[in-house]
């Protein structure tokens, strides 16, 4: 009813907006009051200006596939939904560049560019995830070994600041060193620095052929060594993944992509490197590239120097026994693993595992981030662990969003 909700009424003047309809519109269990669905960068700017006038904290939502990652916001008055900002703006196939709006599902983007024999060389855990959400949380998958992560593929970005000012950085050429690389700052910032509305990516050609070589190793140490052997070879794999089962066995899978003759040749080399028991096929193994945790459970991201991949998996296996929990772990030989604990695992045990895993990864130069967890676990752990440079990060947040209006509290150190 008009008059009762002046903020909603003002939002409706600038974009599609409504009252929040219950838990589906909440963020991390935090109740929101309004939902706005702007359809353009300009509308996002207007919405953020209205939010500032009414002192509304704003959380941005894409497809919501990782909305429970990070800490729950300390305030979330307005949910800014990017669903009405979807679609590929321009696919310059000859330049291997695509400009896409933030609300576009990554799967849709891939379908569009695949028609020209190209791909965005980025794995997302869920193809429904939007481009904007993917940039905001920067998940990564198997192909990071060869192509890096979202930060490495993003070449231009348009975003709206907390004060409603539209800014862009980068451009639509792959090579560009003019000005600060704000795209990298926004990537993985959990929506705390601005609302991304459009992104430009470099693309890669789709390979003509692929082959997957797998071997099942008795333990993590053996598997870690096998993965390092492939990394140290000259076969230039697209991905080398490790997947640890409950019994401690680890499957190592190398993904070889390229021209048919080359793939055949390189597959033979990898079979030799992986030794007895190795086999090859066209299909990706079960669970390949998927995060090893279910909704409601605890999901960890564990990083390490390359030589620490085996030891981290071994530590997961050991800690599972010590704390009476099941830990599923898989990830890239590039030094980024994910580990999952079930929703019904004892919160104290999960917290103890996180702590022990941090102690185990520190000498391996690694970190452990709790991406998502049940509330009872969140109460017991520091989601991010130690964050070097936190003071600089706080200063950046204060410059960009002095009122802490964007996704407050969701990021490191309460940013």
């Amino acid at each position, binding site marked *: 009813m008009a008059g009762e909700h002046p903020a909603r009424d003002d939002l409706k003047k600038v974009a599609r907006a409504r009252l929040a309809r219950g838990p589906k519109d909440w963020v991390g269990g935090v109740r929101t009051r309004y939902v706005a669905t702007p359809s353009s960068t300009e509308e996002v700017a207007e919405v953020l200006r209205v939010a500032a006038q009414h002192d509304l904290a704003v959380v941005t939502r894409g497809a919501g596939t990782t909305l429970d990652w990070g800490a729950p916001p300390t305030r979330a008055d307005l949910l800014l939904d990017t669903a009405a900002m979807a679609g590929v703006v321009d696919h*310059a196939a*000859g330049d291997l*560049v695509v400009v896409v709006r933030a609300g576009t599902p990554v799967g849709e983007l891939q379908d569009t560019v695949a028609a020209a*024999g190209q791909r965005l060389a980025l794995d997302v855990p869920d193809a429904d995830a939007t481009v904007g959400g993917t940039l905001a949380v920067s998940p*990564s998958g198997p192909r990071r070994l060869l192509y*890096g992560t979202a*930060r490495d593929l993003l070449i231009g970005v348009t975003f709206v600041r907390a004060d409603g*000012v*539209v*800014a862009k*950085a980068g*451009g639509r*050429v*792959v*090579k*560009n*060193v*003019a*000005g*600060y*690389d*704000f795209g*990298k*700052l926004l*990537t*993985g*910032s959990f929506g705390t*620095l601005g609302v991304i509305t459009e992104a430009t990516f470099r693309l890669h*050609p789709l390979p*003509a052929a692929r082959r997957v070589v797998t071997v099942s190793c008795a333990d993590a140490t053996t598997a870690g060594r096998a993965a*390092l052997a492939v*990394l*140290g*070879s*000259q076969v*230039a794999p697209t991905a080398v993944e490790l997947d640890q089962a409950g019994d401690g066995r680890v499957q190592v899978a190398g993904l070889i992509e390229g*021209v048919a*003759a*080359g793939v*055949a*040749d390189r597959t033979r080399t990898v079979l030799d490197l992986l030794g007895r028991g190795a086999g090859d096929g066209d299909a990706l193994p079960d669970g390949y590239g998927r995060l090893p945790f279910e909704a409601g459970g605890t999901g960890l*991201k564990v*990083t390490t120097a*390359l030589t*620490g991949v085996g030891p981290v998996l071994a530590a997961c296996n050991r800690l599972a026994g010590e704390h009476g929990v099941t830990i599923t772990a898989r990830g890239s030989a590039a*030094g*980024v693993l994910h580990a999952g604990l079930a929703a019904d695992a004892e919160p104290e045990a999960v917290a103890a595992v996180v702590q022990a895993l941090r102690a185990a990864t520190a000498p*391996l*130069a*690694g*970190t452990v*981030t709790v991406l998502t967890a049940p509330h009872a676990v969140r109460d017991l752990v520091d989601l*991010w662990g130690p964050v*070097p*440079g936190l003071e*600089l*990060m706080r*200063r*950046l947040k204060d*410059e960009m969003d002095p009122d802490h209006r964007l996704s407050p509290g969701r990021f490191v150190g309460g940013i």
Partner: protein
Amino acid sequence: MTTGTITRLAEQLRAELGDDAVITDRTRLRTYECDGLAQYKVTPAVVVLPRTTAQVADVVRACIAAHVPYVARGSGTGLSGGALPHADGVLVVLSQMRAVVDVDPADQRAVVQPGVINLQVTRSAAADGYYYAPDPSSQQICSIGGNVAENSGGAHCLKYGFTTNHVTGLEVVVPDGSVVRLGGRAPDPPGYDLIGAFVGSEGTLGITTEVTVRLTRAPETVRTLLAAFPSTDEAGGAVSAIIGAGVVPAAIEMMDALAIEAAEAAVHCGYPDGAGAVLIVELDGPRAEVEAHFTEVERHCDEHGAFEIRIARDEAERALFWKGRKSAFAAVGRISPDYIVQDGVIPRTALPEVLRRIAALSDGSGVRVANVFHAGDGNLHPLVLFDDAVAGQTEEAEQVSASILDLCIEHGGSITGEHGVGIDKARYMPRMYTEDDLDTMQMLRCAFDPHGLANPGKVFPTPRLCGEVPGRHKGPHPLQQAGLAEVF
């Protein structure tokens, strides 16, 4: 700024760093008056040569206390005046910090100090079969610290990426004088990607004191061909066809007739006679992949009018192909008394159109332009030739050079692909970015360096007033009060 301030600062620095690490002698200071862009010259007030991270931090803290600006310098090979000293400031030369701290092939990482030369990283890892991928043409002398500041690329970044894709850890003295270690041997440190923001920030966010870089496994095979075409049109067509076929070469370089003439005069590289353009195409990787793609590249060159294709039979011949290309900038000195090295980027598909427009600019003005470029990623290096001794030529050349940048912007490109903005292109930034874009970038600068003492006057045409909302500030700007405003 009073002479007294500088004298006291120099005395303090001598006490902290030792006599031999502080230069105030006018003659010796002049050694550092410019970087690779020699048209800008400023003699610094003081030069310091720190040996440790702690000493760099001491210098920065002393500068903050005295409100004196400072500029970091590596080997001084930059081409945008990024390391141009400040007349009333301290030049922090990192060349004494040149230890290779650790080379770890198993982890595919090397840890080096900022003064280490780019090629030295590769040499340190070569015996184990690894190398450091970013390869700016100056790699025999440029420093890693400078590479980090400029986000340096190179001929092979088409396939392997730039410095930013190869740095996983940094130790930085930030402009509040503290030392911060970001990232390390593992990927993806938690929090904002400060490494991503720092690489390419041209010394405006602090001074790098240690760098952890990714080492890349040497490819099994490298194959290189040189193809000669009647003109850049045909060569450009071949480039488009190669990329369009899904081939990602390690490098595709193009030179036009004038650039070839210069290279021949300088290094006798023996490129085919009568070529209007040459392409150097290099493929690397697993043998069978390279062979398949190489055949394809040859075919595309052939179909697009190459009248001669040479394939390097050995490393010596490959080096000869590259010699002409890598010496091209300096070689132009053989055919012109003076020249401007331009650095702009366009979408690759705009190449033929932009080259025609550059030719028209050249014809219209009578200013000769030699073209050398990284054709695979649309990074142009037009060399604008002139004779400073002839009245008006310098201005005309600068006009043509600026018009080329406008062409890049008009085609959706960039005013710099790898040389940086520095002092030289700060004035062009408003042509590429809006005031709001630049204001936003400077929020990062304010977060790191609210006093604006780290390499002031570079990258941005006008400094943002940190800690104040634009339009709302009252009275003189704090920098003005501190006597620093004239530096901008």
